[in-house]
């Protein structure tokens, strides 16, 4: 069988590069926050990095709640309704 083509993403060090790049983008967005003067309708939304930490915390809470609470309570076998 012919050797299958290797893709860039198949190498785990490339995935790590992407991951680090994403952190880089995140931090540069925070630096912009220092420079840009924002007029927000809601006062607290103008706090430094409000959207950044809100997004991060929201997603961690979302995943943990779904995994630890919802899945424990409501997960059943795939054929639950067919039995």
């Amino acid at each position, binding site marked *: 069988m012919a050797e299958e*083509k290797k*893709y860039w*993403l*198949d190498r785990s060090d490339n995935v790590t590069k992407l*991951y680090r790049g*994403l*952190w880089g*983008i*995140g931090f540069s*967005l*925070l630096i*912009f*926050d220092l420079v*840009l003067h*924002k*007029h*927000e*309708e*809601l006062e607290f*939304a103008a706090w430094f*990095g*409000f*959207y*950044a*930490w*809100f*997004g*991060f*915390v*929201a*997603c*961690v809470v*979302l*995943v*943990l*709640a*779904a*995994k630890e609470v*919802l*899945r424990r*309570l*409501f*997960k*059943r*076998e*795939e*054929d*639950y*309704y*067919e039995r």
Partner: protein
Amino acid sequence: MSGEFPVALILILGGALVPLVRGRLRAGFMLILPVAAFAYLLMLPHGAHGQVHFLGQTLVLMRVDRLSLLFGYVFLIAAFLNVIYALHVEDTGQHVSGLVYAGSALGAVFAGDLLTLFVYWELTAVSSVMLIWARGTERARRAGMRYVLIQLLSGMFLLAGALLHWQGSNSLEFGRIGLSSPGGALILVGFGIKCAFPLLHNWLQDAYPEATVTGTVMLSAFTTKLGIYALARGFPGTEMLIWVGALMTAFPIFYAVIENDLRRVLAYSMNNQLGFMVAGIGIGSELAVNGAVAHAFADILFKALLFMSMGAVLLRAGTIKGSELGGLYKSMPWTTGFCIVGAASISAFPLFSAFVTKSMVMAAAAAEGHVVIWLVLLFASAGVFHHAGIKIPYFAFFAHDSGIRCREAPFNMLIAMGLTALLCVGIGVFPTPLYSILPYPVSYVPYTAAHVLDQLQLLVFSALAFAVLIRTGIYPPELKSTNLDSDWVYRRLGPTLAGALTGVVSGLLASLDRAGSAVVSRLVRMLHRHHGPEGVLARTWPTGSMALWMMVLLLAYLLLYYI
């Protein structure tokens, strides 16, 4: 041009004629139908056309105004894209029901009175269920049956509310209804079922993922957005809807995180997007209603694109379960790209459609001082990126390589996805044309440095949260599972209770039966004793005794004669 001819009939009658044509002619005919209807809409003057007098009421078959035209345009764009996406399908029934379904949704949008609305409302239910049953599996048959019953029930609420409304206000006109008007609450429940309000929502997640590859895309465009249209027409500024909408944005995303069927994940995210629209309608300011209907317009397109890409995966890979997929970007690079455009659009990345539509609802919530609602909507915005923006493309096309090697999607599907992707980006980059057809004048400016920065921060750090959770192994793996939702009430609790009740009742009937048969058998025994073969009253009397009695009678007669 006058607007007497109902635009819905172009698709409905055209759809009915589809079986008569074959091959390339059929493809051309089906493509021309939405184009012709669109051209007709462009020429229509505003006003109430197609008036019919019925039972002392004036029914309006074609009410043309900015709101109905906006939904009319997007329904026809969706119908056109759906026809392209489904061109390879040979099953004539699906083409017919798809066009009749799109046509009846269009008819409902242009209905100027509640009775016409009701008729088209029910027609959407009946025509669309064929797209579920066409899958041909037992699961699809059952899910379709549940779906159509719930849709017809929504119509029953609408009809009952409409009749009360008629009785109370002596008018069938479909304008602003409000909760306090007669029949208003019943009509709201009818609309609420279609909009998938919390606890009335589960028909959506139950039925849509069971439809055919092309049927699900079709379904995603019309039914729920018809509900949103009706809500925007009848109940703008109803405060309760703000909370209902906020709840709708938040709770489905938890389910979406743990759901394995990727088309069901999309159904949950659809529920979440509808929440933004419902909340906008509830807020009711010009900015909010503009935002709600603009978001409905954008949502029809990006949700269609996402369902199209997942449909292509189901068609080629033969499964749509996250636990069985992964690495498909190697086999389906174009589909991957289009899916990512849909994902960026639903997540409201700058330059993609939801960035210019959803943000109007958010801005309206902030402007009206709904701080808690605004926070819930922001949470839901992060969440939708998480489950629809990242999870869908990640588990289908990337993640661990499942080893599945398949062909790229059929050419017609790629064309449909390409056009839809173009529209999603087009709206995001040039929002002005969409803004110019909204119900109210727009002064909102989406592209400010602060808005772009805020949104990018929200999205990039949501993505970072996903990446951290995946790399640390905390992220829950995709598991083969069924997650109980509100449909459990009628799929498990109801039948169980009914089963138990049947047991009790049949036990009761059995003991009644026993008691009854005891009484009857005693009666039979008694009759038997007196009338049976040995019974006193049933003995055969000899002929002699009859002659004797005859003689007695004759003697008595003789005696009486002489007296």
